[in-house]
């Protein structure tokens, strides 16, 4: 059994699986049930001046029969008074002293507002704070959440104000609704953040009803943009984690969030630099018990790899994440069709012929039987055929032995620069 305990900027938890600040962490009842199920930590639903929500708050994208490929919400922060939340945090921490409870906070960008809420929350006993600079809807219209998280100066200033009084580690939660998340991550570092978490939800409109022409969801015939999350956003989140992890100016731990649905997703985020992960949509879809498979899966994976502690996995893929200009232009893979497995559906031929490089031929053998063959010399190794192929093992992408030395775009440009007239 591997050691799954993590230490994220001084916040310890029995495993790297935390519930993200969201509906699953709205109350002590829920968080205590989550801890009983096995979650290592919880980021309490964002505390601040209690809000009023609408009904009809969630919507989801289904794709080819898969429910909740993406999830959209227009729910705001907690609608309960601070005292009620603090009482439940206290009771929960008392019952589960070894689990991590992090209070998510959001107030107006004023020093005295931040000082007040930080002191009141820390007085009750939490393991850390997470500053919500990411919520894209509703609160952003009031100058909070993503509205302040999109302005690096405000991220730095507010983090600094919190650090003036905070006694526990401060995590800054970043919005993905920005061109370059490393800019706001660097601002958080400059403000004194102990860690960053990412991503919050992405601005989204789930759909439009073609009969009523209402947005989905709608509130009495009107809609507003929401925040998108769930499996569909994982690649976006993973890239943002990776970009921050490989940036030497962002030298603080990362809590990874965004579409994490199983242990494999979690392991990928950890490999890409996250010390731990936060989960919401998968728990909303399947319930708290999914953490059992996450724990078992990660444990087995670490054992198979001979890794004693999950902390030893953190960031192992970061050195492999680079700029395009540093990739080897002379590396070559080609598609190879395994005709024993291929069902001759021709999807690879169609995709290659119509939208790629026209290098898969439809041929007939001596008996008149159809088969597909890649002209490897014309194949650019784009992977498209293997992506669209419906049969596992029918198309392999095969490395071709390199006859030329490695050369990156940057090396090429540097070399030919001396010949430019």
């Amino acid at each position: 059994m591997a050691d799954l305990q993590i230490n994220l900027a001084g916040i310890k938890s029995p495993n790297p699986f935390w519930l993200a600040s969201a509906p699953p962490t709205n109350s002590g009842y829920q968080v205590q049930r989550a801890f009983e199920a096995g979650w290592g930590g919880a980021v309490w639903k964002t505390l601040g001046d209690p809000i009023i929500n609408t009904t009809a708050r969630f919507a989801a994208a289904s794709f080819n029969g898969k429910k909740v490929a993406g999830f959209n919400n227009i729910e705001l922060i907690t609608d309960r008074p601070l005292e009620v939340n603090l009482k439940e945090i206290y009771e929960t921490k008392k019952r589960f002293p070894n689990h991590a409870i992090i209070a998510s906070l959001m107030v107006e960008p004023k020093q005295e507002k931040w000082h007040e809420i930080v002191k009141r929350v820390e007085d009750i006993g939490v393991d850390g704070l997470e500053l919500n600079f990411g919520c894209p809807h509703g609160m952003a219209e009031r100058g909070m959440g993503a509205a302040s998280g999109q302005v690096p100066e405000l991220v730095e200033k507010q983090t600094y104000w919190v650090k003036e009084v905070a006694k526990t580690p401060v995590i800054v939660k970043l919005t993905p609704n920005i061109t370059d998340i490393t800019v706001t991550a660097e601002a958080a570092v400059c403000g004194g953040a102990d860690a960053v978490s990412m991503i919050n939800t992405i601005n989204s409109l789930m759909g439009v009803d073609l009969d009523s022409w209402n947005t989905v969801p709608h509130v009495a015939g009107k809609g507003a943009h929401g925040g998108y999350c769930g499996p569909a956003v994982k690649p976006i989140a993973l890239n943002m984690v990776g970009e921050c992890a490989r940036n030497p100016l962002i030298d603080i731990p990362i809590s990874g969030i965004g579409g994490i649905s199983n242990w494999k997703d979690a392991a990928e985020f950890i490999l890409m630099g996250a010390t731990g992960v936060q989960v919401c949509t998968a728990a909303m879809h399947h319930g708290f018990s999914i953490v059992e498979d996450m724990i078992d899966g990660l444990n087995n994976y670490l054992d198979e790899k001979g890794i004693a502690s999950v902390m030893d996995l953190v960031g192992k893929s970061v050195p492999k994440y680079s700029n395009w200009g540093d990739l080897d232009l002379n590396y070559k893979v080609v598609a190879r069709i395994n005709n024993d497995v291929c069902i001759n559906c021709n999807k690879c031929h169609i995709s290659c012929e119509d939208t790629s490089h026209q290098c898969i031929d439809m041929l007939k053998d001596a008996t008149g039987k159809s088969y597909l063959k890649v002209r490897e010399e014309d194949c650019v190794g784009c992977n498209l055929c293997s992506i669209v192929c419906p049969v596992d093992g029918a198309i392999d992408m095969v490395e071709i032995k390199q006859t030329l030395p490695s050369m990156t775009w940057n090396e090429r440009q540097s070399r030919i620069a001396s010949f430019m007239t």
Partner: protein
Amino acid sequence: MSEYETFMEEKNKIDSYFDKGYQVISIFENLSGTFVDFVTGEEAIEREVVQIQLLTAEARKYIATKLLFVS
């Protein structure tokens, strides 16, 4: 002609000029591709300059690889 065949033609040209002792003196890149000027002969009066246009991406990689590691 396939892209590969075009590349092979361009590669053969590059290789043949190098084999004959030509050296690259100038490279110019624009919307039409890469233009490589080869020169041979040591004396100014003997110098012959030939220009080839590289259309394929493979050839544009190949010429740089040759310059980086071979010549």
